């Protein structure tokens, strides 16, 4: 019989709602699992066990009184360390926010709590969400639960590792160029980046405001649908949040994909030929599964997609260099003790507070925005981005979904790409297009490579077609069959 921490979030919520499982029991199971494994995995930067126990006990009392429990009743949820919770430290994995406490609570956290989820703590991340390995945290590197010498991906690596290791049943991450989907893929979890504007970002610390989106990481597609139903919807406190009400993401989930058209990108064929053999095998097997579920696979062309990584690293870093200008040692967190004037206070606080990757990206963004280079880099990148968006929408006139691998490799070794930032950036080759176009995209585990590490298939859909995307993900999950979890036998 499965331990409670092994259950999907939807199953925990069902049992708590029916009175078959107490919220305090579900929490105790997740806490015991975290106690057993998180010393090795290091998914969390801080936990709020007292607050979580109070919330779970309160929920149990309300259910005992006959009150109706919420959609995520008793589900232990972890949140990324860039989401505000009033009174909690908020550090974005950075020394520059040392000592800062959030003065208000993010809309997504309010909605989780209103749905009776139990928020258990904050997860590690690449500093300011800049990274693909979770090695850029100023705290420590998180490890992949499938194999501890491998990265969990990033930047939401802590959230993905928490779900994969069983320390949380659901987690929130943020995805700017793939930071929910890529770590979900490397950790064998499901990761959803919703349409730009689908989920409120009130309370999310900005990295690149044109692309940042909050998304759930879960062990099943049903859990992602459940979470999206709770999180999505208008928010008057975020002017970029769509007015459109959320759809019903659950009722059509089992309807299958017979008759749908799935596009594969002609321009990525060359890249796909370079994939490791087992990644390529999983990719082709994934397409065969979609066909066996009744979809037809057709080729589409989006020429500008070949420039997606280049466009992303210009536009995102230009926005990051301006968004992060506010961290100056005056208003937030860390202030250098060693300065003679205000200008030096700014420079020293930022230089001592930011880590290597954040400084590199601020430098790149500042360079691309500087006089003489602005049009050649930022202007040109925006122009190519617009062209790519138009080409993608043309492709979506012919297909319902577009499929790619989520990642070009399985989880790489800790330290393997630290000294080669460009190699690290190129691991975002399949995730950046949906970010640049604001499209919803879903990463679903597709199998294991020969060494037992997870691989993943990505599906993209038209804006606000998350219901279709999740339905297709569920059909793929069903065709794939049972996936399993890392045992962490060496530490548990």
């Amino acid at each position, binding site marked *: 019989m499965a331990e409670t921490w092994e259950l999907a979030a939807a199953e925990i919520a069902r049992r708590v709602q029916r009175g078959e499982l107490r919220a305090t029991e579900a929490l105790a199971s997740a806490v015991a699992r975290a106690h057993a494994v998180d010393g090795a995995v290091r998914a969390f930067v801080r936990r709020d066990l007292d607050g979580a126990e109070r919330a779970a006990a309160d929920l149990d009392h309300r259910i005992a009184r006959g009150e109706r429990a919420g959609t995520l009743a008793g589900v232990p949820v972890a949140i990324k360390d860039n989401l505000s919770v009033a009174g909690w430290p908020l550090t974005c994995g950075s020394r520059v926010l040392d000592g*800062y406490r959030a003065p208000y609570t993010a809309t997504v956290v309010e909605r989780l709590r209103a749905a009776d989820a139990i928020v258990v703590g904050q997860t590690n991340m690449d500093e300011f969400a800049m990274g693909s390995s979770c090695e850029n945290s100023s705290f420590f590197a998180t490890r992949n639960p499938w194999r501890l010498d491998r990265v969990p991906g990033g930047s939401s690596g802590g959230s993905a590792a928490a779900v994969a290791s069983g320390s949380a049943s659901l987690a929130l991450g943020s995805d700017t160029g793939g930071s929910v989907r890529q770590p979900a893929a490397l950790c064998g979890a499901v990761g959803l980046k919703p349409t730009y504007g689908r989920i409120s970002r009130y309370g999310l610390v900005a990295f690149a405001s044109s692309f940042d989106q909050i998304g759930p990481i879960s062990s099943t597609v049903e859990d992602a649908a459940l979470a999206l139903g709770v999180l999505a919807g208008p928010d008057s406190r975020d002017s970029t949040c769509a007015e459109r009400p959320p759809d019903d993401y659950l009722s059509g989930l089992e309807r299958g994909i017979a008759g749908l058209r799935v596009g594969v990108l002609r321009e990525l064929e060359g890249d796909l030929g370079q994939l490791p053999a087992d990644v390529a095998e999983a990719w082709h097997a994934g397409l065969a599964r979609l066909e066996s579920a009744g979809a037809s696979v057709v080729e589409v062309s989006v020429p500008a997609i070949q420039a997606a990584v*280049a466009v992303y690293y210009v536009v995102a870093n230009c926005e990051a260099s301006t968004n992060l200008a506010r961290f100056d040692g005056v208003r937030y*967190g860390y202030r250098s003790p060693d300065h003679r004037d205000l200008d030096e206070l700014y420079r020293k606080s*930022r230089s001592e507070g*930011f880590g290597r990757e954040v400084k*590199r990206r601020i430098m790149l963004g500042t360079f691309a925005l500087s*006089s003489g280079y602005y*049009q050649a880099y930022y202007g040109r990148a925006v122009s190519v981005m617009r062209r790519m968006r138009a080409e993608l929408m043309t492709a979506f006139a012919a297909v319902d979904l577009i499929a790619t691998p989520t990642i070009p490799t399985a989880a790489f070794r800790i330290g393997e790409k630290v000294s080669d930032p460009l190699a690290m950036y190129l691991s975002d080759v399949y995730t950046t297009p949906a970010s640049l176009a604001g499209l919803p995209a879903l990463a679903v585990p597709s199998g294991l490579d020969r060494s037992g590490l997870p691989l993943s298939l990505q599906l993209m859909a038209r804006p606000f077609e998350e219901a279709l995307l999740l339905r297709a993900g569920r059909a793929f999950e069903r065709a794939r069959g049972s996936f399993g979890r890392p045992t962490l036998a060496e530490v548990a």
Partner: protein
Amino acid sequence: MSISADEIRKIALLAKLELSADEERAYGQQLARIVAYIDQLELFSGEEGPESAASPCEAEDVAEPLGEIGWPIDNAPDRLDRFVLIPQVKAADRG
């Protein structure tokens, strides 16, 4: 494309970062490699050249000393020498 040490220092100044000599060298090499990769954008852009579509929001990046900042300091509700004093926003008890 190569990025000179002077350019790296200028970018750092604009970004309000202070880099060690080692960092200047490392970032110079890494940014040059990244920018060379990004230069593939040329293959996908239209007819417009870098000089033909200057943005009106583009200003000269000229480093200037802070100098005298007179009236904002005079209007500040609280001040100390040349500095505006602001309420403490970080928690006293570090968590």
